C-alpha cells in the first residue's frame, strides 16, 4: 500500500549519494553544536538569573550568535535530506503542515526574544519565552523527522486528516519515540553547553571571576545532561539497536559517560587540557549521534526505496562551484577571525 504513495524524484541525484550523505551529516553536526548551545544555554542563563552572574550575562550576550549560526547551519541537513529523500520528507511535513509552517513565525518570535534578553530588555520574560519556543520547535522537528522515517504510518494519518482528498495539516506526530529522541538531544545539549563553558573559561576568557563561575557549572550541567541522555537512550535504544553498526553503537553510547567522568575530573582539578579533552569527547558524541541518526533513518527508509539505486546525473560542475565558494568563504572567515582576535588583544584601535 505505502509503496504506491512513494514517487521518487525523476531528475535523479545530482552526484552520487555518498557526497550527499557526507554533507548532510557535516551540516547536522554543525547545526547541533549551535542548536545545543541555545537549547540548553537559554534555560540555563534564565535559571542562573541574577544579572550579577557572569556566566548568565555571557550566555545571554552570546545567544544571538548561536541562534544565527545554528539556524544557518540547519539549512544544510534539510537541503540534503530533501535531495536524498524527497518522497519521504514532503508527505511527512505536508501531513503536519500547520505545525511545520508555524516553525517560521515561532522562530522569528524566539529570535527577537533572544535579542531582547541579550540587550537586557524584559530579560526574564524574553528568555522564558525563547526557551519555551525553542523546546516546542525542537519537538516539532523531532515529530517531522520521525514521521519521515515511518511511512507505514501515513495511510492512517492521511485517512484521519483528509477531506476531499486534501489534508487539513492540523496534525502532529508527537509520540513517545519523538519525545525520546528529543530528550536524547536535550541531554546532549547540556553536555555541549558544559563543554563550551569549560573551553570558554579556560581558553577564551582571562577574567578570573568568570572562569571560577564557569568551572563550578561544568560538572553539574554535564551530569544533568548525562542523566537525561542516559534515561532517554536506555528506553529508546532497544528499538534501533539493529539499525546501528557495533562501532557506532559503541561511540554513540560511550561518549557521554566518558564526558561525565571528565567533567567530574575537571570539577576536582580544572585545567585547560581536561577542558579540551571534554570538548573533543563531546564533539565525538555529537558526530556519533549524527551518524547514528543517519544510520537509523537510512535503514528505516531502505526497505521502501534504495537511494543507491537512483540514477545519478553527475552534475559535477555545481559541486565544484560549491567547494570553490566554500573555500573562498573559509579564507574570508579566517581573515575575519584574525582581525577580531587582534582587536580583542587590543592591538587595534
Amino acid at each position, binding site marked *: 500500500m505505502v509503496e504506491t504513495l512513494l514517487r521518487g524524484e525523476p531528475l535523479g541525484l545530482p552526484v552520487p549519494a555518498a557526497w550527499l550523505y557526507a554533507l548532510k551529516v557535516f551540516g547536522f553536526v554543525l547545526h547541533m553544536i549551535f542548536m545545543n548551545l541555545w537549547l540548553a544555554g537559554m534555560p540555563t542563563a534564565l535559571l542562573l538569573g541574577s544579572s550579577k552572574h557572569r556566566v548568565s550575562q555571557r550566555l545571554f550576550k552570546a545567544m544571538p*550568535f548561536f541562534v544565527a549560526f545554528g539556524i544557518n547551519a540547519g539549512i*544544510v541537513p534539510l537541503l540534503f535530506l530533501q535531495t536524498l529523500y524527497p518522497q519521504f520528507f514532503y508527505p511527512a511535513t*505536508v501531513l503536519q*503542515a500547520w505545525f511545520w509552517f508555524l516553525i517560521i513565525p515561532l522562530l522569528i518570535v524566539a529570535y527577537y526574544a533572544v535579542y531582547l534578553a541579550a540587550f537586557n530588555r524584559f530579560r526574564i520574560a524574553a528568555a522564558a519565552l525563547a526557551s519555551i519556543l525553542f523546546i516546542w520547535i525542537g519537538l516539532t522537528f523531532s515529530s517531522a523527522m520521525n514521521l519521515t522515517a515511518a511511512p507505514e504510518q501515513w495511510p492512517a494519518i492521511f*485517512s484521519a486528516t483528509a477531506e476531499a482528498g*486534501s489534508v487539513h*495539516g492540523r496534525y502532529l506526530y508527537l509520540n513517545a519515540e519523538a519525545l525520546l529522541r528529543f530528550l536524547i538531544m536535550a541531554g546532549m545539549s547540556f553536555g555541549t553547553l558544559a563543554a563550551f563553558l569549560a573551553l570558554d573559561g579556560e581558553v577564551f576568557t582571562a577574567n578570573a571571576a568568570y572562569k571560577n563561575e564557569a568551572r563550578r557549572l561544568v560538572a553539574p550541567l554535564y551530569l544533568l545532561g548525562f542523566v537525561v541522555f542516559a534515561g532517554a537512550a536506555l528506553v529508546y535504544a532497544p528499538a534501533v539497536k539493529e539499525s546501528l553498526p557495533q562501532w557506532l553503537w559503541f561511540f554513540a553510547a560511550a561518549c557521554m559517560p566518558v564526558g561525565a567522568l571528565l567533567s567530574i575530573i575537571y570539577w576536582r582539578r580544572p585545567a585547560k587540557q581536561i577542558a579540551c579533552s571534554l570538548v573533543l569527547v563531546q564533539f565525538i558524541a555529537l558526530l556519533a549521534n549524527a551518524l547514528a541518526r543517519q544510520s537509523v533513518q537510512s535503514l528505516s527508509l531502505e526497505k521502501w526505496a534504495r537511494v543507491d539505486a537512483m540514477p545519478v546525473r553527475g552534475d559535477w*560542475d555545481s559541486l565544484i562551484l560549491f567547494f570553490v565558494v566554500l573555500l573562498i568563504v573559509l579564507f574570508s572567515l579566517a581573515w*575575519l577571525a584574525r582581525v577580531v582576535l587582534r582587536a580583542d588583544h587590543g592591538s587595534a584601535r
Partner: protein
Amino acid sequence: MDFPVWYVPYLTAPLLIPLIAVPHVIVAQFAVGGGFLLADLTRRAYGANDLAILAYLRGLTRTFVLITIVFGAVTGVGIWWTIGLTSPETTSALIHIFVFGWAAEWAVFVLELAAAFVFYYFWGRLEPREHVIVGWMYAAAAWVSLVLITGITAFMLTTGGWTPEKSFLTAFFNPSFAPQVLLRTGGSLAIAALGIGVHLSFQKDHGLDKDLIIRWMSRWALAGVILILVGGAWYLAVMPDHARLNLIRAPILLAMTGINFFVTLLVTAALTWGHMVGSRWITPPAAVLLFFAGAAAITTGEFVREGTRKPYRIDRYIFSPGIRASDVTDVQRSGLIRRAPWLQHYLDRELSPGASLRAADLPPAGRVEVGKSIFRYHCSSCHAEWGYNGIVPILRPWTPELIRDTVRNLHRANPAMPPWMGNENEREALAAYLMQLSQGRP
C-alpha cells in the same frame, strides 16, 4: 500530484508563500543594498573624520542587523519551507537541479552573518581600513547571495536551453538571469536608500550633517534606479511569449505593472530631488511614504513575476497543479486520479475500492465528491472555493454548458490556466462539482 495536497480554506496554501516572500524580498533587498551603502558611508565618514556621522552609522547598523539578520534570514528559510509544503513537486525539482547552488548560498550567508556581526560588534575596536573592508565583505557576500538565489528564481520563469539532461550551469545562466540580477541589484540600492532615509528622518540633528548623508546615499540610489530601468527593459525583452501574453491579458497584472512603473518614477523623482536639495525633504511622513512606495514597487514587481509565470511553476517543465509538461498527454489518457496516488487512496477508501477509476458510473453524490477532490488537486494551487481567487463568485453566472466547455478547454479559455489534465470521466466529475458550487451549494 505525487504528494498529498494541503488545503487552506479561503486562502489556498500557495497564498502563504507571498505572505512570507514579499516581506522577505523587501528586507533581503534592503540587506543587500544597505550593505553597499553602509560600507561606503562608513568609508566616507572615516575619511571626513566625522564623528557624528560615525555615531549615527553605528546606531543604524544595529537596526540593520536586527532587521536583516533576524527577520530577513528566517523569512528566507521560510519561503523554502512554505514552497515545500505547497508545491513539493516543484521544490523537489528545484532542489535536485540547484542543490549545490543553494549550498553555495548557505556558505556565502555564513560569511554575510559573520561580517555583519563583526562590523557591528567590533565598531570602534577595528582599524578604520579593516572596518571598512569588513563592511565591503558583508556587502559582497549579500550581493553574491542575491545572485545565487536570482539564478534559481529566474530559472522558474525562463528555463532557456535547459533540459533534464543538462547541467546546473545551463539552468543557472538562463535568459532572464542577468536582467533580474540588474533589477534586483538596482531595487536593493533604491530600497536601502529609502529605508535609511526613514531611519535618518527620525534622528535629532545634534550636529549630524544629514545633507551630507543624503548626498552620499542618493548617488547609490540613483545608480540603482538606472539599473532598474535597464534591467526592467531587458527583462521585458526576454520574457517568454506566454508570460507576455499573461501580462497583457490579465487586468490585475497590467494594473500591478502600471503601479510598479508609477512608484518607480515617483521614487526616482524624489531621489533626484533629494540629491539636489539635501535633507529638507527627509521628514518622517515623507520618508515613510517614499519607503512604502519603494516597498510597493518591489511587491508589485514580485506579483507580476509570479503571475506571468502561469500556467507553469517552472517554465515549460512543471505546470501549476504539479504535473510535468512531459507527462500531460499520458495523464490525459490514463486519468489524473491514476497519477495522484494520495487522491486515489482517498477515493478508494471513502467511496468504494476502485471508485476512483470509474467516476462516471458513480451516483451523482459520489461523482460530486470525486469532482471536489479533483478540484483540490487540479485547481487549488490558484483557486479557493471561497476567498482568494474564489471559484464560486466566478462561476455564479455560468451555465452548465459553459462550465463543461471551459473545463475541457481550460488553457484556451485562459492561457494562464494549464490544459485540462484528466480523462473524460474526471472532467464530468469536476464539472458536476463546479455546477453544484455555481448554484451556491458547498
